[in-house]
């Protein structure tokens, strides 16, 4: 097991290099630091000096790959590629274009993101499983059909609508919770209730439908028929046979997103004013702060790869027949 994990971590390196090269190409080669400065400074008739100054303040005035002008051993290291891209591998994110230390910002903003994403994730899965089990209990009935049409309708509504409607009714009209904002500690609960509920509701349509298919697949298998033929009650079949076996594909399929929960949700955080990584990223996009966007891309990839490894491990944990090799 340990050997497998270590090998998988080594496999991750070429992928991260790929991500790194891709973002580097996107941010520095397709679109040069000169153009970045021009957009940031915002003026069409900007002087060349101002651009140079902007670049040198942020370290964008170096050559991309090879610094032939540097004699003191900085041929490869005193370049944009080394300073801005390779440093990411040791999680040295450097400074944002506004001059803040990105690493510190991330550590600070990670927790509000997690406080929102984790409850949404867990409650969402529980609700979806309960709903889909309930529907499977009445499978192939009118209730089943109606519930499925309802799910498709829920899926067809834009996620933004749920946010607007929730904020309007719960916060503005009924004054049950604050519209937006955030406080640390236990006070956070007041601010998080509504976004969590909305997050769960907007996932119900797709989740319930998917889990229903997975449970139905299980319900059609031979051992279920055998159990019924033996005279096991419907409820016992559902909870003792279908549920545990149906949970395997559900749990292994959600493991991959667990590490990414740290990244937060762009929409939720920005609408509810939660100072997490999602709103951090969104603000960076709005301010065209490419240093932050680059860091978040890299962080997101790392977390995704960790998620992939966790998925493989979870397969062996829930199903002893799977062996990692």
């Amino acid at each position, binding site marked *: 097991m340990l050997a497998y994990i270590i090998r998988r971590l080594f496999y991750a390196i*070429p*992928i991260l290099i*790929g*991500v790194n090269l*891709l*973002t580097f190409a*996107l*941010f520095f080669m*397709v*679109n040069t630091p000169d*153009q*970045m400065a*021009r*957009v940031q400074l915002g003026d069409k008739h900007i002087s060349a000096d101002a651009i140079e100054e902007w670049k040198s303040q942020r370290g964008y005035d170096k050559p991309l790959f090879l610094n032939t002008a540097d004699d003191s051993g900085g041929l490869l290291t005193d370049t944009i590629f080394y300073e801005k891209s390779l440093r990411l591998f040791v999680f040295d994110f450097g400074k944002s274009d506004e001059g803040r230390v990105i690493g510190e910002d991330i550590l600070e903003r990670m927790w509000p993101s997690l406080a929102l994403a984790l409850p949404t994730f867990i409650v969402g899965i529980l609700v979806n499983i309960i709903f889909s089990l309930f529907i499977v209990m009445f499978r192939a009935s009118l209730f089943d059909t109606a519930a499925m049409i309802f799910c*498709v*309708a829920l*899926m*067809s*509504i*834009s*996620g*933004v*609508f749920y946010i*607007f409607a929730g*904020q*309007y009714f719960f916060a*503005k009209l009924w004054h049950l919770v604050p519209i937006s904002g955030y406080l640390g500690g236990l006070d956070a609960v007041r601010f998080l209730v509504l976004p969590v509920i909305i997050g769960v509701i907007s996932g119900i349509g797709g989740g319930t439908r998917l889990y229903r298919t997975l449970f139905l697949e299980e319900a059609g298998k031979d051992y279920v028929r055998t159990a019924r033929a033996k005279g096991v009650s419907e409820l016992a079949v559902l909870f003792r046979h279908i549920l545990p076996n149906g949970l395997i594909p559900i749990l292994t399929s959600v493991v991959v997103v667990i590490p*990414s929960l740290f*990244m937060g949700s*762009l*929409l939720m955080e920005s609408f509810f004013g939660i100072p997490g990584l999602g709103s951090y*990223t*969104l603000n960076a*996009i*709005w301010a*065209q702060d*490419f240093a932050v*966007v680059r860091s*978040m*891309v890299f962080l*997101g*990839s790392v977390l*995704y*790869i960790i998620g*992939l490894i966790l998925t493989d491990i979870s397969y062996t944990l829930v199903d002893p027949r799977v062996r990692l090799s």
Partner: protein
Amino acid sequence: MIKPVVLWSDVLIFILVAFMAAFFWHLRSRPLTLKRWRSVFHSHTGVASFVVILFYLLIAVTDSLHYRLPLDKIEGSDDVHYSQDVRSLLDDILHDLNSLDETTYSEPFSLYSFAKINMQDDSGGVYRDYPRLASAGSHLQTEEDIHADIVQRSVWGLALGLMISLLIIVPHWLWRRRYAAQSSVPWVTAYLTLAALICLSAWALLLGQVYHIFGTNQVGGDVLYQSIKAIRTGVLIGTLATLLTLPLAVVLGISAGYFRGWVDDVVQYIYTTLNSIPGILLIAASVLLIDVYIETHPDDFQLVAVRADFKFLALCFILGMTSWTGLCRLLRAETLKVSQLDYVHAAQAFGVSHARIIFRHIMPNVMHLILISLVLDFSVFVLAEAVLSYIGVGVDPSMNSWGNMINEARAELSRDPVVWWSVSAAFALMFVLVLAANLFSDRVRDAFDPRFH
């Protein structure tokens, strides 16, 4: 004379329609596939959602016939100059909706503006009140007539709609009774859906001549007009982005599954790398780059419409390039399975070329995956446009789109009282399209996915 303007996205939408027609024509010679499609069209939801999708597509097509009007001639010159304003055929149809000019927000069916302004009374004193709208309801004798007028116009609109529907449906019904009596397609559902759509349109057009059915937006534009114009953006982004996922997904997925070895390794590496980047960030980064390109090449984009169109196509391209990994993985897995079948081995033993095996033996067996993901992705992209425009990396702000309308709603919803109509109209029209697409894709999946038989 008017001057036709052909935007790149117009060309693509016509190619698309031609392609769809050719596809269904081609089906005539494929009895097995035809049988599957029949089962799609034998269900009520399948037929009804297809009619709704066609209706949206028709609106998108009429909105893609662009032209520029000539300006008044300058004295003593024969040169004809054209307006910078690019119009479409749909603008002519909706002319009445767009011709009611107001200055700011007004509620649906309201005769008064939504905001109070300073006004002078007869004696010269200043007071604050809601001003009367400039053109909405200007035909009314007294304001009390409005309810009777709305009812009267609604009745006329519905009657007109019914008449048009009958003009279309009755000839078809007669033709069907004579030549295709055995059809088991639920035509009644199709007729009812079509009649409902036509009646609704006739009603909206007739009332829209004199009222703002969905109110007006911040600068006094008619919201109904805007949300209808946004249909083209929604339909196009859904279809183009979906089609653009195909080339990479199909080529890479099938070759990975068929050739295995290093090809498989490379393909897996590419899609894991691309997948590991948070999708929305990759899209945002690429769109920001396009923005920078447009800003640094202002000479290439003289017309606003051309700039918006370029950005729009770039967005579709980016969406396609960042969303092909899911289908690619499915195709790879399926091809791995299919290429182990006996007849593929037999073909290889006979020395049939790889290209031929892939086209003759592999492709038909993985086609259902491609088709299912095509129809599934459509609604995903339509919904994604709204979110992307909110984030500020969506279509050009000058383009009518539901995402841009929702984006404006951020300020509107924080007003008191709330300006709810603009965003509601956008959500409603988007919901109908996405719901129809989702229901249709369900039927297609039921018909084509072997696991659902």
